[in-house]
């Protein structure tokens, strides 16, 4: 790779705080930038100030704040701004977190700029001057290495792909406003309404290091699942059955059509391990399964399986984790 800047789209909450995977993206960006500057891109009307200490610690050279006279939540408007920035900075790589919104932005940019795109990467390397993305496919059962053969590369990176680390030397990132030329295409879609989901007090499901999941076996009682999640400082997820039954919100659904997770630790309680669910969690670091049915398919992929009643096993585990933690 030539020493062109790397751009990182800075995913953030409405209050201006960066979402946790952004630090991982910036760390990865520095690794592949090999000394070239890493630039952040800020889309939306939120105040950038709360993010600046993290960006400084990550060694970010500059933050480009997209300013548009159109709704900044529309992926087309974000793509308008990023397209301009790719041209203006000569950047060869844009990293985005792997969210549905990012994939919309990447798809638009790929068509507009001719860039190659890899989604859901779990690693990125430079080999013989070429960018190579690592990706787990087919429901977590295969690993691939994929070179991007175009001058500009767009990569969406899964949460927990790399451990975040601060830069050796902090920076004082300059914040630069970028007036976006909003395309006629962008103006045809209208955002009628947008409601931010309230924060749960637990980590975000998509980026949590620990996820505890309840399935059919909970019979609608998620309290042991929540208890263990809280003891482990993790997020709560659910299977399709549990969300369809209305036991928990649809946004908790893990699977190929729900949230895809790859935490360091996944605990499935009363989860059978249907193929749709496995597609959303099989790339997890360590898999623990608790199920009364010894024939549940999830045991085939579990590092630690317990054939037992989740209503006794989970509270006992939560209590023991708290006891061991208190001991230090």
């Amino acid at each position: 790779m030539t020493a062109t800047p790397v751009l990182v789209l800075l995913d953030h909450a409405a209050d201006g705080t960066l979402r946790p995977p952004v630090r991982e993206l910036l760390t990865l960006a520095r690794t592949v930038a090999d000394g070239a500057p890493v630039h952040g891109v800020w889309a939306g009307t939120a105040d950038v100030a709360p993010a600046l200490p993290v960006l400084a610690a990550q060694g970010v050279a500059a933050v480009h704040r997209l300013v548009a006279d159109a709704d900044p939540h529309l992926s087309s408007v974000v793509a308008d701004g990023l397209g301009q920035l790719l041209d203006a900075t000569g950047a060869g790589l844009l990293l985005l977190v792997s969210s549905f919104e990012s994939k919309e932005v990447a798809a638009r940019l790929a068509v507009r700029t001719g860039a190659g795109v890899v989604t859901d990467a779990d690693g990125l390397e430079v080999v013989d001057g070429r960018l190579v993305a690592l990706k787990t496919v087919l429901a977590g059962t295969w690993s691939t290495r994929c070179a991007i053969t175009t001058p500009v590369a767009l990569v969406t990176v899964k949460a927990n792909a790399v451990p975040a680390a601060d830069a050796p030397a902090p920076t004082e990132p300059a914040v630069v406003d970028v007036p976006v030329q909003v395309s006629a295409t962008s103006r045809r879609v209208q955002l009628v309404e947008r409601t931010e989901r309230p924060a749960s007090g637990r980590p975000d499901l998509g980026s949590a290091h620990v996820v505890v999941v309840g399935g059919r076996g909970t019979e609608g009682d998620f309290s042991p699942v929540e208890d263990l999640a809280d003891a482990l400082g993790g997020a709560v997820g659910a299977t399709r059955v549990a969300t369809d039954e209305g036991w928990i919100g649809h946004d908790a659904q893990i699977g190929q059509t729900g949230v895809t997770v790859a935490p360091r630790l996944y605990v499935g309680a009363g989860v059978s391990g249907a193929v749709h669910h496995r597609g959303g969690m099989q790339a997890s670091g360590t898999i623990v399964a608790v199920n009364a049915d010894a024939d549940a398919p999830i045991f085939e992929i579990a590092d630690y399986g317990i054939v037992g009643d989740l209503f006794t096993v989970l509270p006992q585990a939560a209590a023991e984790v708290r006891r061991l933690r208190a001991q230090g």
Partner: protein
Amino acid sequence: MRIVVCVKFVPDIQSDRQLGPDGRVVRDLGDGTLNELDENAVEAALTLAEEHDGEVVVLTVGPDDAVDAVRKGLQMGAAQAVHVLDDDVAGSDAIGTATVLAAAVRHLHAAEPVDLVVTGMAGLDGLTSLLPTALGELLDLPSLPLAARLTVDPAAGTVTVERQLDHASETLTAPLPAVVSVTDQANAPRYPNFKGIMAAKKKPVTTLTLADLGVDPATVGTAGARTQVLAAAPRPPREDRVLVQDTGDAGTRLAAWLVEQKLV
């Protein structure tokens, strides 16, 4: 109202799916099927066509047996099917596939105006979710992805979708024609009944090539792909696996194991 539904033929996710040495999904295992998430797209299109006196055309790009995917669409109630079949399409990435589909939609639109293009939210093989938005860009139409609810106002000539994102829910609206993708929350796909299956046998499947569509083969397939798979390998099996039957202390033992593994 004329609606085109783009569908994909994929290996059945219940089957033992594999990648070949070229990094492509092995498609000759004989258990391919209509991408399950595209059944929601066909259902959404059929429902809209029933509400607004319309017609549904199912469209696919793929090898010989991909015709099975559009046949399923015909059995569900689509009136017409189009299969883009060309060796030069093989190896297309999401943008390449979108390029071929966009050309096919333009071809259909030239014959008779297309009001709406509907797709599923993702293909259960590649799962990139890039196609619907890329298709909208290529057609220079508004794209409204991930509809959990979808309504069309024929008088106003608009389409409106409600969608759930990771951190927010949104309502988007745009003038027709437009491209919409639907999620598996949008509806419950109908099963083809006997009548539908028999009727489908009489319905036309038009086969088109890249030449018919005026697509330069260099822009699609392996030739036009912007990424190249260098290596593909099954993930190694997990080692040191533990399976215990709870005899009263499994929760305590799990906690100790998590500490030992430095996961707590």
